[in-house]
Structures are given as structure tokens and as C-alpha cells.
């Protein structure tokens, strides 16, 4: 997230679009604190949840229509002049001129310029700025020119009227206006509002655009980088943030550098040429990449061999290898062996039936987890005869956090260290131990291989500390942080870092091989004295106090322990806080400067996310968004499916798209899977007339591995259930508590009907649209004596379709049927 949970208390309005009270209850205390201070709480959710119960305003919207809602707010803010003018003019690309050829769906019937119907992809040639002689974007600070980003934005969202919001989202006009007023009027120099989101926005075939829409709204209102503002991204797992930073993902290198593609990045030089921008902090990318290669290949990585760049696998294409690709390709027999480490795709992923069928075709499967998951016992899945499953399965019992040392990065980029309280029982080990033990065995098998393809793996070090089988985790973190591979001297020949000493900031990383760093954004988490004494900042335990309410002494937030990123935006052009009430960092002209003879420095309540001595009046001293190539907030931001978010209906929808003739995201990823393993319902299907959304409950965790086996949690819900409105229950003659069958073109599940006032049908284009809600925590394993801890798998209903940018599935909005009884 751009901000910090603690800071939410300073919001004047909080718009939760996620179900924060249920999924992040302890973080929600700051929303309650804000409320006690007089802030208004808005909850936007198809269902009335425990978050709604705590909110001032519950705004029910039909699943899959977020962009219409945000678009409506953007239009409302512009039409009523409620956007933060100075912020928008100077800190965003609103004033930039766009290529005259560029057109939006307002003018092209649902498409942006450049759509190729044959390739079903966009040619994005016209999605760019007009540049002046020096190659800088042309600007119109009055924002009046029709070719400016701002005017395009205004025109693009001109169709997102209050009436349209009511018609598409099913939000009554008055309620929407009340919401828009409440949110937009609580932003500006004196006020700030924050918005939370989670998988409510991401799990759609326009997931990334959903989030862009929300970020654009926050940018327009001047809510980024300021106290009480921000985009509150709430992640679901203890270390989703960290696993993403360290890039347990197919498309990037650790630290958010693209993973090499065969055709685009055949060698290091090409890679660096293509991927290093002219401006922004990313100009340092070569230092980060070379340091990473040094961390992986050690001494074997030399300038001569491009630091081992060749040893990195090259992707054949960008549209491959993602979570959903894995199971489609696994089902096709392309994948033979599979490691499921602390993940349970037999339950937790989209189209789980396909995932199970795919895993049953593997030669071998390794599952490492705390409990015997449905994935480990995929050969026991209902309707499966173990004899038919030829897959060899290896199950390794693992240790939870309390039984091992290590660090986790929370949703506010805060790296926190945990220490082992006890030894894991029996054969249980840490995942770290598992990986190095496997690595060592494989290195032994490859020992002496002369093949170049084995060199990289053989060059890599998997021994940390004295015991090769039990890595010293702090030393692993040190490698991630980075260290000097040789004595590093300053220009006067004074040793700055001794060989092997941890580097204290990513500003000191080099592209000549003199530094190694496994993930540059984490640099600084470990400090080390020349005599080798390690200071682990992740283990910092200084509580917050009135002088430092953000608690900089507790853990370490990347980058550089900044708690609110882009916080330069909390000050105006001259570097003064926009308002005393909303100050965070500011320019102190009298503070000691970069050199003894210089004055002036950015100071404040947070570590400035800015060059510390770059004066406001210096070049780019007024551009806060330092990670963006153009150094300003991107109201215009080209993605594969458009530079502005445009509403398209979910792939499965009961209604047509009222905004354009284009029904669904034209570049959405739809997988063809054989054996009718991924059948989709047509628009307005009579067989599957209801909208279904899937979600999580406070008392359970994801696929249930860490909750269904725990009596304390398993006893809190009677059984797997579906939430159904009284209206729909009446139509179908369903009583609260009776069994119902929920079906989709992919499968069906039997659950208990929870008939509730918390769901209400939507009035969409004047017609009633029913929506049901089904949590997805249940599976066929659990506690024998608590039968309710077992249940059918909700994801058997969801489809293998994806967002075109990140390939996330659409489990928040698809269609289903509900039938009384077990059929």
C-alpha cells in the first residue's frame, strides 16, 4: 500500500471497498479510530458485512461494476470541481498533451485506438505523449486543451453519469450522490481520504484497471503521499508482499525488474538497453540487476560472462507460465513434476476441478505444508479412484512461523522478524531447510558437470552458516540486503565497505560486480559494522510514540524505511505542507545540506521518499513520483487493455454492457481447455441467472489449511454456506438452514442456505438481478469430529479466465444457479 495502517486514523473519510473489518480486523482498528475522531466511513460492497455494520454508509454495488462506480466518482469530482487542482496540475500528467491520434471508447464504441480484431490485441502506438524538442512531454497547465490528458479523461468519463451508475451498478441515484459528495468533499488541501481494496478489485478480468481507476480517483483528489490519504492495499497472506518482492512469480526478477524474455532480452546488454529508462530512480536498474546476479552466482559471475546472465532461463513469451497457465498446461501433460509449497490449489485456485484433474496427471507431486491438504491428498478427491492416479506424492511436514526464524513483509511493506520459540516437532522443518537440502543434493548430483546449463546452479551458494542443512536465516537476509564482494574504497582510498560487509543503502549498489544484493529494495534492512556485527533492523522493536507515530524503530519498511511513499506530495511546490493539519515531510531550507557549505534538506515525520537534498525549486524538485518515468502521477497510464479504465461486463454476466457495444474486456484472457473443463455461460444465461461472488470470512483462512484443522476456528461456523437474500429465497422456496445446490457451467456444490437481510437483489437497468455470496474456505479434509469443517469446494464453480495484464481469475463476479435441496 502507498500508506501505513497507523496513518488511516488521520483520514477525514475512509472508503472501504474491501471487507476490511472481516479480513483485516486488527488493521481496522485505525478505521474505527478515525471514526471516533469524526471521520465518515463508507463501505462499498455487494453484501452488507461486518464492515458495513461499522460504517456510516453501506453502498451495495453489483459485483463486476467497480469501474463504473469509480468512473462515476471521477466524473463527479471533475464536474463539481472537487479535485485538488494544484496537485493535479503539478503532480500528475493531467497537463500532458497526448498523441492527436489517440481516442477513447467514448468515440470508438468501447475500444481505444489501435485495436486489432485479428490479434485481439491493441497496437498502442498512439497511446503516448506529444514531446517537445528536448523530448519532454508538452504541457498545458490550464488543462484546457482538448488534447491534454485531463480533457481526454473528462471526455472518457463523460458517459459515467449518475444515471449510468444506477443503471449498471444498481446503486440508487441518491445513495451514489450522497457517497460521491461525502468522499470527494472530504479531500483537498485541508482534508484527506483513504480507500481500501483487496481481492474485491483484483479478481476480475479487468482487475488491474479496477485498481488504476481507484488510484486515479485518489490522485485527482490529491490523496497520494499525504497523511490520512493513500491507497490501502490489503493483502491476504502474511507474506504476499514479501513473496512478491522476492518475486516468487514468473514474470519478474526480485525487486520488480522484468524476467528476461527470449526475444526481447537475449543478452545482458540488450536487456539493460531495453529496460533502463532515461529518467526516474530506475536509471539505476543496471546496478540492481548486476548485484542480483552477483548474489546468485557469486564469483562465477564476472564482467566477461555478463555476470552469468545467460544462465537465467529465458521466457518464450509473456503470455505463459502464470498460475492459471500452470494448470491448463499441466492438464495438457506439459508439466511432469510439481512442487506445492504452502499452497493448496486443489481448493484455493480458480476452476479447482481442473486443477485437481491436472495434478492427477502428474508424474510426481511434492507437497510441503503444515497439514495434510486436499492437494496432498488429491488422489483421495471425491469421485476419484486412487488406483487411477499414477502420481507419486511426497508430503513433507513443515513448521509454522512460531517454530522458525525469519522475516515477513506485511501489507504496508513492513519487514518484521520473528524468532523460533520452539524446535519443530518430528520431521517438521522450515521451508528454508527443505530448499537448501534439496539444492545440496542436486548440486551433488550435478557435481563435475561441464555442461554450461548446469554452471549457474552449481555456482550458486546454498550454505548459510556452519550447518549446511540448517541455514542461518539472518545470513540469508544479509544476502538479500546486499554486501560488498570486495573492499570498496571511496575516492580518497578510504575503505567504505570491507569485503563481505553488508551494504547499508541501495544507493551504494554498483554495476561493476563489487556489490551483491538479492533484492535491492530490501537493502538497508541489515546493517553491519566493519567488525562483522550484524544489526537486523527487521527485528527492531521500538514502539511508536508521540514524536514518531509511524514507529520507524519497529521493523524496517522498504524502501529505505519509508512508511508513506511518494510523501514529497504532502508538501506543495515550494516544499511547504499543503496544510499544517496534513503535514508529513517538508523542505527545511536551514537544515544542513548535502555538503558543509550547502543548506536545505527534506525533513518531517517520515523518511522523505525523495532525494534528500533536492530543493523544491531545483530541476525535478517538484516531481514527487520518483519511481515513474515521467516523475508525476499517472492519470494516463497505458496498460495492455487501455490507458484509462473502461467498464466491460465480467466474462460471465446476466446483463449486457450498457456503456458500449463491447460486452467484455476485448483482450481478456480466455483459456481453451479440452474435455469441457472450462465451459462459460453466455450473457444473460437462463440456466445460470444469478450473479455469484466468492469471499473469505474472519474465522477462516483462504483454502482453510490454517483454519479448518484448528478446533478453535472450525467451531465458529456451522458448515459451508451460501448467503441468499430473503427475496431470492422466497422465489425459490428456500428456508434458512436448508441444503441447496449451487451450480455453474463448471460444476456444482452443496451448501447450507443462510437466508439473510444482508443481501438484497439489485435493480439493474430496471430489472431485478439476484446475487448470492459463497465463501471458499471449505474442502474435503478437516476435523472428523466437526463435520462442518469439511465441505464442497467453491472454486469448482469458478472459471479459467484472466485479466490481460496479470492473468488473475474472475472469482468475484460470475454466474450460477441455485436449486433447493441436494440435486
Amino acid at each position, binding site marked *: 500500500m502507498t500508506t501505513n495502517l497507523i496513518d488511516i486514523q488521520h483520514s477525514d473519510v475512509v472508503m472501504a471497498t474491501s471487507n476490511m473489518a472481516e479480513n483485516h480486523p486488527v488493521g481496522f482498528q485505525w478505521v474505527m479510530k478515525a471514526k471516533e475522531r469524526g471521520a465518515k466511513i463508507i463501505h462499498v460492497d455487494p453484501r452488507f458485512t461486518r464492515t458495513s455494520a461499522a460504517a456510516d454508509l453501506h453502498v451495495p454495488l453489483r459485483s463486476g461494476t467497480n469501474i463504473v462506480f469509480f468512473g462515476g466518482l471521477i466524473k463527479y469530482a471533475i464536474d463539481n470541481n472537487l479535485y485538488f487542482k494544484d496537485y493535479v496540475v503539478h503532480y500528475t500528467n493531467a497537463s500532458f498533451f497526448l498523441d492527436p491520434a489517440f481516442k477513447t471508447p467514448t468515440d470508438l464504441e468501447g475500444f481505444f485506438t489501435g485495436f486489432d480484431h485479428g490479434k485481439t490485441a491493441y497496437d498502442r502506438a498512439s497511446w503516448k505523449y506529444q514531446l517537445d524538442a528536448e523530448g519532454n512531454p508538452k504541457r498545458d497547465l490550464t488543462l484546457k486543451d482538448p488534447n491534454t490528458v485531463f480533457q481526454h479523461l473528462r471526455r472518457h468519463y463523460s458517459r459515467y453519469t449518475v444515471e449510468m451508475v444506477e443503471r449498471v451498478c444498481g446503486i440508487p441515484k441518491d445513495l451514489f450522490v450522497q457517497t460521491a459528495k461525502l468522499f470527494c468533499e472530504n479531500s483537498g488541501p485541508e482534508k484527506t481520504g483513504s480507500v481500501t481494496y483487496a481481492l474485491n478489485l483484483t479478481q476480475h478480468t479487468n482487475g488491474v484497471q479496477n485498481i488504476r481507476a481507484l488510484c486515479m480517483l485518489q490522485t485527482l483528489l490529491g490523496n497520494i503521499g499525504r497523511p490520512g490519504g493513500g491507497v490501502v492495499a490489503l493483502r491476504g497472506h502474511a507474506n504476499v508482499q514479501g513473496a512478491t518482492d522476492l518475486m*516468487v512469480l514468473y514474470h519478474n526478477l526480485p525487486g520488480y525488474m522484468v524476467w528476461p524474455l527470449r526475444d526481447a532480452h537475449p543478452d545482458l546488454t540488450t536487456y539493460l538497453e531495453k529496460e533502463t529508462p532515461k529518467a526516474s530512480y530506475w536509471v539505476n536498474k543496471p546496478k540492481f540487476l548486476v548485484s542480483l546476479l552477483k548474489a546468485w552466482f557469486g564469483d562465477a559471475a564476472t564482467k566477461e560472462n555478463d555476470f552469468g546472465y545467460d544462465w537465467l532461463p529465458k*521466457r518464450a513469451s509473456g503470455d505463459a507460465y502464470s498460475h492459471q497457465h500452470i494448470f491448463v498446461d499441466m492438464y495438457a501433460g506439459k508439466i*511432469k513434476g*510439481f512442487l506445492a509449497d504452502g499452497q493448496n490449489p486443489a481448493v484455493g485456485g480458480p476452476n479447482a476441478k481442473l486443477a485437481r484433474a491436472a495434478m492427477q496427471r502428474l508424474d510426481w507431486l511434492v507437497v510441503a505444508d503444515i497439514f495434510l491438504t486436499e492437494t496432498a491428498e488429491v488422489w483421495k478427491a471425491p469421485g476419484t479412484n486412487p488406483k487411477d492416479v499414477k*502420481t507419486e*506424492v511426497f508430503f513433507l*511436514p513443515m513448521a509454522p512461523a512460531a517454530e522458525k526464524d525469519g522475516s515477513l513483509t506485511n501489507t504496508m511493506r513492513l519487514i518484521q522478524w*520473528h524468532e523460533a520459540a520452539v524446535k519443530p516437532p518430528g520431521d517438521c522443518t*522450515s521451508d528454508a531447510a527443505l530448499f537448501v537440502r534439496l539444492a545440496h543434493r*542436486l548440486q551433488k548430483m550435478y557435481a563435475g558437470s561441464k555442461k554450461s546449463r548446469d554452471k549457474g546452479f552449481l555456482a550458486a551458494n546454498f550454505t548459510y552458516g556452519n550447518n549446511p542443512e540448517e541455514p542461518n536465516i539472518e545470513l540469508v537476509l544479509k544476502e538479500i540486503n546486499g554486501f560488498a564482494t570486495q573492499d570498496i574504497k571511496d575516492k580518497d582510498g578510504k575503505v567504505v565497505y570491507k569485503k563481505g560487509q553488508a551494504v547499508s543503502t541501495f544507493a551504494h549498489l554498483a554495476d561493476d560486480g563489487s556489490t551483491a544484493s538479492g533484492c535491492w529494495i530490501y537493502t538497508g534492512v541489515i546493517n553491519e559494522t566493519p567488525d562483522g556485527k550484524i544489526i537486523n533492523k527487521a527485528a527492531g522493536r521500538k514502539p511508536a510514540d508521540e514524536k514518531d507515530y509511524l514507529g520507524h524503530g519497529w521493523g524496517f519498511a522498504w524502501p529505505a524505511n519509508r512508511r508513506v511513499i511518494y510523501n514529497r506530495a504532502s508538501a506543495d511546490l515550494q516544499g511547504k505542507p499543503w496544510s499544517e493539519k496534513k503535514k508529513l515531510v517538508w523542505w527545511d531550507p536551514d537544515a544542513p545540506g548535502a555538503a558543509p557549505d550547502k543548506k536545505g534538506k527534506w525533513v518531517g515525520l517520515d523518511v522523505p521518499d525523495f532525494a534528500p537534498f533536492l530543493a523544491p525549486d531545483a530541476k525535478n524538485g517538484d516531481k514527487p513520483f520518483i519511481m515513474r518515468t515521467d516523475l508525476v502521477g499517472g492519470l494516463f497510464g497505458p496498460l495492455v487493455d487501455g490507458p484509462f479504465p473502461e467498464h466491460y461486463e465480467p466474462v460471465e454476466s446476466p446483463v449486457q454492457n450498457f456503456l458500449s457495444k463491447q460486452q467484455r474486456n476485448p483482450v481478456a484472457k480466455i483459456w481453451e481447455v479440452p474435455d469441457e473443463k472450462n465451459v462459460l455461460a453466455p450473457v444473460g444465461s437462463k440456466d445460470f441467472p444469478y450473479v455469484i461472488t466468492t469471499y473469505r470470512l474472519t474465522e477462516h483462512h483462504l483454502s482453510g489449511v490454517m483454519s479448518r484443522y484448528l478446533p478453535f476456528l472450525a467451531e465458529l461456523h456451522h458448515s459451508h454456506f451460501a448467503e441468499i437474500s430473503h427475496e431470492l429465497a422466497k422465489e425459490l422456496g428456500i428456508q434458512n438452514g436448508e441444503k441447496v445446490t449451487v451450480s455453474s457451467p463448471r460444476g456444482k456444490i452443496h451448501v447450507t442456505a443462510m437466508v439473510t437481510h444482508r443481501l438484497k437483489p439489485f435493480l439493474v437497468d430496471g430489472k431485478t438481478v439476484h446475487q448470492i455470496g459463497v465463501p471458499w474456505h471449505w474442502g474435503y479434509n478437516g476435523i472428523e469430529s466437526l463435520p462442518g469443517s469439511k465441505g464442497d469446494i467453491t472454486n469448482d464453480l469458478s472459471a479459467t479466465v484472466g485479466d490481460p495484464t496479470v492473468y488473475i481469475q474472475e472469482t468475484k463476479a460470475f454466474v450460477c444457479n441455485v436449486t433447493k435441496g441436494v440435486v
Partner: protein
Amino acid sequence: MSLNRRDFFKYAGTSAAGVAVGARGLDLAPVEAAATTLRIKEAKVAHSVCPYCAVGCGQLVYAKDGKIVDIEGDPDTPHTLGRLCPKGAATIQLSNNPLRPTKALYRAPGSDKWEEKPLDWMYDQIAKRYHDTREKHFIEKEKGKDGREITVNRLEAIASLGSACIDNEECYLLTKFNRLLGLVYHEHQARI
């Protein structure tokens, strides 16, 4: 299943004591003392982080004789102030749980049961699977779009999933391990 339910015999014992107390009369003092001694007094405390959602609540884990006896919030944590949700409050049952397997298990092709195996045997077998699959399916070079041959050092026959539930250091080691073997199917929960 009823975890942590004090077993009956303990009570049989105390009930006898109860009689003694009852019979002899009314001195409540020893009982009061018993009811007010703190279970975690002599326990060793470790600083930890809640393993559930990404709020990252600081936890204090109290252990005695190599067994966790209590897990609660760490009040010093600036962003959580020692509070927990029901999952965080139940963390102890991730460790102390009769359903938790503590032996490595192997399931042979077509078999309908697990077999306990020594860890080393498991590691050797798994390493062998990685090795053989890699040898059989590794793609060292292939033609690019422009037709020229490019070194790709890629292994598509093995996929890896997870995890957002493991530590940063473990994620790093997993990425290093997978990638340097040539894996490209390398994903975790963040994608979904």
C-alpha cells in the same frame, strides 16, 4: 475433538483434595493461590509475527519445556498494539494440534495409502525426480521469432507454486533454487 480439555484424572485427584478441604473446613487460601498463579510466569518468550493475514500483528510466543503454552499479541507493535483477530488468537493450534502430521509421508503411484518414510530417503527421491525430469526435458537453446538460435536454459516440465505463507528468506531461496534449475512456471498466491 476437544483440544486442551484438562483430562479427567487430574480432576479426580483434585476432587479428593476437595474432600480434604471440605472435611477439614474452610481454608480457601491454597486454592486461591492456585487460581492466581500465572501459567506463563516461568515461560520463555519469543517475539513473533502472526502467520495469517498481511496486517502482520506482533505476537509474543510463550514456551515451556520446548512446548508452546501461550500465544498473544505484542502490545509494543505500533500498527496493531497487541490486538489479534480470531485466527491470530488461535495460532497456538498450528503448533499444538493432534491433526498435525510430523512424519514425512510417501504415496506410491496408484496406492490408496500413505507410507511413513525417513526424511533423507524423501530428499534423495525428490532430488532424483528433479534431476531426471530436468535431464529429460531441459531446453538449452531454441529459435527466436527472428529465427536465430538463442540460449534459453529453460525447464518447463517442472512447476512450482508457493508461497505467500513462508518467510522472505525462504521465498528468496525458493526463487534462487527454482530459477537456477531453469524453472519458468514459478508462481504463488499473489497471482490469484
